[in-house]
């Protein structure tokens, strides 16, 4: 009898584990399937959609958002949220653009400047959330208005026009390597780098650990506060970089640059399968979520559907994605319980 049970349990456990792994993969494959579906619908509705030219346009539009979505995903993984991403981008973009307009011969140190500013802003968020023990939504809601307000105060109602920016900055985003925009390559590179960092480095795993079970993480001996601070710092760093890219892309930097991106980045991350309750999801998924949003935008424009339908669809897809996420989470929990009971029976 016991021999039989011993023989049986491993297969059961493997099956169960198989399901939970499958469900975890489903989060990324789900967004891929969604992307495919949306693409299929639009290609059937309009012939202009399925062209190489349009595909590159979509990819370029999604590129910067995918970095911000990755930044948002890192924070979401720790069970927090960052609604100040748009303001951080705007702040960094304006300050770096202003610096570049005053120093026409500025070189690559501009990128460093953007990264440092972004990191600083992110660290402030992190300090408030981790060490100030402020709810992340409230803290970043406050810094969202603070950073945007500081940008206004710094700008004095001015804007930095594209003829004041250094030529290399504007040209670099229009570069093409083998027909692919350099912007897309840079963004893929950054997202993959972050993904590797989160997947294979101990610090990256700690970010997941804090989000999955903060209490267990404390008992394990990790300092949660540092991890959260790091996550926010990383998020700010990426937002600073994205802000610079966006400034170079649009050319004319105004104080309202990237306002509303907190919404899109959250939408992208949630659609990409990053759980709002922390601990699960990937930055690759978030970047794919950004691609989904860009595809929907592009398709709606091609079909001539009014812009405000976008808000409706974007909002509804967040709710739908959150529902799917909770459903998957419940299934995983169930299958893990099954595993435990399986062992106990043995």
């Amino acid at each position, binding site marked *: 009898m016991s021999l039989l049970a011993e023989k049986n349990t491993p297969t059961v456990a493997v099956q169960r584990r198989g399901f939970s792994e499958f469900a975890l993969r489903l989060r990324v494959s789900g967004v891929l399937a969604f992307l495919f579906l949306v693409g299929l619908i639009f290609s059937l509705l309009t012939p202009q959609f399925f062209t190489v030219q349009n595909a590159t346009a979509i990819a370029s539009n999604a590129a910067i958002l995918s970095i911000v979505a990755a930044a948002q995903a890192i924070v979401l993984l720790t069970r927090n*949220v960052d609604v100040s991403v748009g303001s951080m981008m705007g702040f960094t973009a304006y300050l770096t653009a202003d610096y570049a307009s005053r120093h026409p011969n500025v070189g690559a140190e501009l990128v460093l400047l953007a990264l440092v500013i972004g990191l600083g802003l992110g660290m402030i968020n992190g300090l*408030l959330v981790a*060490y*100030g*023990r*402020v*709810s992340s*939504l*409230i*803290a970043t*809601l*406050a*810094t*969202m*208005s*603070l950073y*945007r*307000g*500081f940008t*206004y*105060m710094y700008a004095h109602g001015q804007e930095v026009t594209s003829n004041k920016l250094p030529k290399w900055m504007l040209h670099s985003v229009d570069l093409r390597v083998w027909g692919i925009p350099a912007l897309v390559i840079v963004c893929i590179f950054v997202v993959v780098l972050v993904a590797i960092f989160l997947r294979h480095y101990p610090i990256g795993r700690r970010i997941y650990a804090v989000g999955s079970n903060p209490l267990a993480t404390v008992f394990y001996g990790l300092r949660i506060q540092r991890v959260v601070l790091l996550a926010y710092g990383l998020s700010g760093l990426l937002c600073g970089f994205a802000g610079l890219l966006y400034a170079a892309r649009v050319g004319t930097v105004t104080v309202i640059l990237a306002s509303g991106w907190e*919404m899109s980045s*959250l*939408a992208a991350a*949630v659609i990409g399968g990053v759980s*709002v*309750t922390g601990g699960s999801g990937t930055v690759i998924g978030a970047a794919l979520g950004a691609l989904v949003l860009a595809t929907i935008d592009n398709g709606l424009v091609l079909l001539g559907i*009014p812009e*405000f*339908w*976008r*808000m*409706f*669809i*974007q*909002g*509804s*897809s*967040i*709710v739908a994605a*959150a*529902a799917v996420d*909770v459903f998957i989470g419940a299934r995983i929990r169930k299958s893990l319980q099954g595993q435990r009971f399986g062992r106990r029976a043995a």
Partner: protein
Amino acid sequence: MKGRWAWKPSQWEMMLAILTVAAGAWSAQLSPYYLNLDQIADSTRQFIFPGLLALGLMVVVVLGEIDISLASTLAVGTVLFSKFSECHVQVWIALPIVIGICGLLGALNGLLVAGLRLPSLAVTLGTMGAYRGLAFIIGSERGYTDFDDSYLWVGSERVLGDILPISFILFAIASLAVGFVMHYTVFGRRCFAVGRNNDAAWFSGIKVRTIKIRAYTLAGALAAFAALVWVGQYGSARGDNADGAILFVVTAVVLGGVDINGGKGTVLGVVLALFLLGTIRNGMGLANIAGPIQTVVLGGLLTVGVLLPALSASTSHFLHLLLPRRSTPK
């Protein structure tokens, strides 16, 4: 009986009241036009519509949830009023219908949060976009300004010797009603219980799901009143109405001493915080301080408001470290 109705304002509420008076004094210093009954009564209008939203949000926050879609619900309300006005429907018929629809939008939030157990931040973030889109879909991008006078009455008229705005009376009634519901009824006490400990409340037999759905519905219905006030004040309705107002609303609720994690807070605190924020805003407006700087001040206040508990905790932590004989705190 006497004991039940006797109440003592908390330290936090006293501080808010004192700060409000101080802000008033500061405003009077800044501008000679401040100390004028007409001006002060008029300034209350600025925070009536966010105030009504804040009352609704307060109930939701006490439950430990959040609703950032309220400003979008308000926009749906204003656009609906504009449609009814276009069809020459009397406001007395339109108002219950709009309250019903906005309540339904709130109930949908509640159903998603409590019924499907989705995280409220994600849900209301989604519905914030969805309802805003819905407002545009109903009203198209064109603004509507030809409101019937009966629609403007609540938001623009005054009574009692042309001083007291009707919208203020509406706000006073609403805050008294919400205060009564939250502090003197079974429903209110259950709200606090759920916010304190969701699971314990469920185990003790409280229908957590129903209570949450009701709270969200209440918040949505109050947003309909806020929409009516908006219509009266600005005389226009468009899909982007009150876009970004949710920051002010959340600031008021948090500054009013409502714990964002739920289970703690008073309606009086929220009302006092609204008065404080309204006074500061009015004073800054009279002193000709630019809008962006006002935003910075608002954001700064919110930060300080939420940091205060942590600051006091860290000072006591520091004191504990200085006094080695006491047991080390966690």
